């Protein structure tokens, strides 16, 4: 049995790695097919490089070669860890991504955990009190939130908490004019609160609604009725039967939502001018900064890939029957 599972996980991994390669090919084609001069896309329109230096870059990245060869050249450099130099930030792409992913990573992690935990708790309560006033209000809010554009929520949060109340800074990740070494954890948290709040609020509705639905399904099942009849308290029932049956699917759904999480992060970062991967993405696409855009596309694909991989493995382990429709929920 466990042999079989291990094999399953292994084949799943191989399938997804192949997928990752394909995704990077697609991203490469999309980006390089853009109507920009390939050389300009590597050095920017305001480049002050000498002609020789330009030729060297064109040579290094195979910019004059046909597409398949160009991709192989790029992939070769990337495998050695060389993504080129970002036009926008004038630094190696890998450095830009590293430092920015750290910012975005914290933002996404906090929002992900918060929306997961909070959403789960709310979902369980709503499910238990189905039809009650609390359930109805939460359900309504969730339906509205589900339809609300992330960036608009961000703007509203900004308007209320930063502009009207003046409680929080309007943007960035650290106070203006502070040396990097002097920025405290307090500063960081202070600047993180609103983006995290926005991203949490946006992501929470899926979790709540999903958990609530599962909760309702389970609570009406015979073994719960039996447990009730046995005199177990509500909390005991929840802890013993419900959590076990819902928590894992809910976590799985959370992992499968990495793609949405990334999109929400990009929008929230742009609203709050937060120096993470999301703002870098828009800046890169704005400035036709192809090396950076390629790097971000690849890393975002890896990010989604990890989420899906974990989700699929969890599916495979905990509910082999649903493996066929993995990702459908």
């Amino acid at each position: 049995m466990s042999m079989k599972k291990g094999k399953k996980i292994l084949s799943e991994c191989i399938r997804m790695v192949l997928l990752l390669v394909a995704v990077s090919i697609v991203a490469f084609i999309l980006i390089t097919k853009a109507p920009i001069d390939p050389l300009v896309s590597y050095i920017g329109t305001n480049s002050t490089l000498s002609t020789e230096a330009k030729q060297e870059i064109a040579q290094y990245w195979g910019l004059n070669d046909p597409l398949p060869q160009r991709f192989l050249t790029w992939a070769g450099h990337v495998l050695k860890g060389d993504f080129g130099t970002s036009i926008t930030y004038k630094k190696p792409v890998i450095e830009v991504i590293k430092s920015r992913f750290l910012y975005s990573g914290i933002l996404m992690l906090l929002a992900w955990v918060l929306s997961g935990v909070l959403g789960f708790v709310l979902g369980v309560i709503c499910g238990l009190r189905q039809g009650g006033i609390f359930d109805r209000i939460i359900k309504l809010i969730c339906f509205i939130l589900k339809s609300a554009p992330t960036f608009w929520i961000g703007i509203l949060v900004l308007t209320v908490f930063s502009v009207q109340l003046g409680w929080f800074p309007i943007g960035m990740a650290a106070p203006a004019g502070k040396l990097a070494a002097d920025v405290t954890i307090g500063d960081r948290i202070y600047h993180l609160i609103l983006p995290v709040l926005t991203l949490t609020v946006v992501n929470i509705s899926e979790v709540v609604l999903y958990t609530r639905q599962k909760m309702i399904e389970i609570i009406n099942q015979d073994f719960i009725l039996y447990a009730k009849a046995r005199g177990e308290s509500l909390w005991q029932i929840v802890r013993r039967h419900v959590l076990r049956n819902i928590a894992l699917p809910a976590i799985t759904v959370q992992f499968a939502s990495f793609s949405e999480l990334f999109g929400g992060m990009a929008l929230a970062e742009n609203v709050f001018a937060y120096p993470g991967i999301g703002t870098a993405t828009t800046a890169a696409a704005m400035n036709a900064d192809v090396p950076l855009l390629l790097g971000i596309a690849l890393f975002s694909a890896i990010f989604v890939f990890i989420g899906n991989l974990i989700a699929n493995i969890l599916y495979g382990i905990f509910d082999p029957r649903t493996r066929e429709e993995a990702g459908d929920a």
Partner: protein
Amino acid sequence: MKRKQAGLWACIFVLCITLIGCGERKQSSDTKTDVTAFVGTNIFEGSLDPVKGAMSYGYSFTNNALLKVDLNSEYIGDLATDWEISEDSLTYTFHLRKGVKFSDGSDFTADDVVFTYETVHNNQANNENVDLTRIASVTALDDYTVEFHLSEPYSPFFDTVAMLQIVPSDAYDSELFDTMPIGTGAWKVVQYDANQQIILEANENYYAGAPEIKKITLVYMDNDAAFAAAQSGQLDIVMVGANYANETVNGMTLQKFETMDVRNISLPVLEEQTQKNSEGKEVTVGNNVTADKAVREALSIGINRQTIIDHALNGIGVPAVHFTNNLVWASTDTYEDGKVEEAKQLLEDAGWVDSDGDGIREKNGQKCTFNVYAASGDEERYNLAVALAENALELGIKIEVKTGTWDEILTLQNTAGVVWGWGQYSPTVLYSLFESELFLTGGYDNVVGYNNPQVDELIHQALSANNQEDAISYWKEVQSTANQDEPYLYLVNIQHCYFVNDNLDISAETQIPHPHGHGSPIICNMQDWTWK
């Protein structure tokens, strides 16, 4: 689980409270020694290396040139103390200031000047702002005397000298200097966070005396975030667009500065056709509406520039009918605008008549309409174009305002109008605007396809004049001749607006007229700033 969460929330809450406390404390300015400023994002967008043309418009803070511009836009010594020009205007001898040190402690000598000029000269393609092609040789006569030989007379040579700041010959590093140049200037970069902030420290060795303020941070933000940061007391200077000019900020006052930065709209003068560009590619150029001189002229006399400025810029800016008016070589020709009837007559005489009653004129089935592009993200230019379009509609000319990135504009600039911003001390900008050979050479020069042999001749006479007086009169003639053809529709000499902390004195009396720079030029005299 719940308890943990409560704990987390409590932590966050406590943190917020303490942090808000911190924020408030920061606002009291008694103990202030540093300045944090938002002066636009322009200086973050390029290299800081003088060899690559950085800061050549006259507000360098890390390096000095041999000459600089004074308040009357005349050239005075900076790293040079005095100079001689030979009779034939081919030899310039500069005597250098003694005892000047670079921020790394090394001495400034003639070798550094020779090194800088030779490096730029040998890599001219890397520096499009400073043109040294007419220099034949640079020699150090001794440690403090440099002699320049020109291959032919070049009247804007002083402009060139003032634009090129000197880098140290031993310490120059092409990569390092992009972000942290070593120079003789009043400031040195101590931290450079791309697209975040540049932190400057006073150069205690600055030859004219160390600045009183010891640390200045230039921050990179969105305009709105910057304004909000100023409201919460985090910034001492914030550049704002004209759209914020009616706002108020506690403890700050709005200050406006004159610029030489003109906003004009290029109007292609050629009929639509295909031509080969400098790379040999066939491109479509020209526009059948703006090619008619009557349309261009009607716009220039028929629109009301003050109304446009009131509408688009909250009234901030000075109407302009030619390229700038605060420089010695500026044209002094002027004319009144808002002559609607005259403009209409002009159009009708040229055959532009509104025959179908839709308010827009036609001629031979061609509607009198064309596109004007504004750079996307530049709300000010977009507003200007829209306000112009409103105004032009009165004349029966329909202008469709569009937005595009600079990459897109590069491909559209020869067939449609574009809102431009030009503003620098050197009259060579006129060469860029009107010289016929520059058409289709890839950059943003002469995008309209202007070709007037008389103007070309005048430009070359001006460039080769062997004295300033002649050069200036030629430059004025270039403008009066070219402007009769109206290839550019000049709209406004903009003004830069800043909210400045009431306790900070930014020495308005030593601010030069601001060159082009999207708000950055206020830093031109940072060494004179003081806390009151």
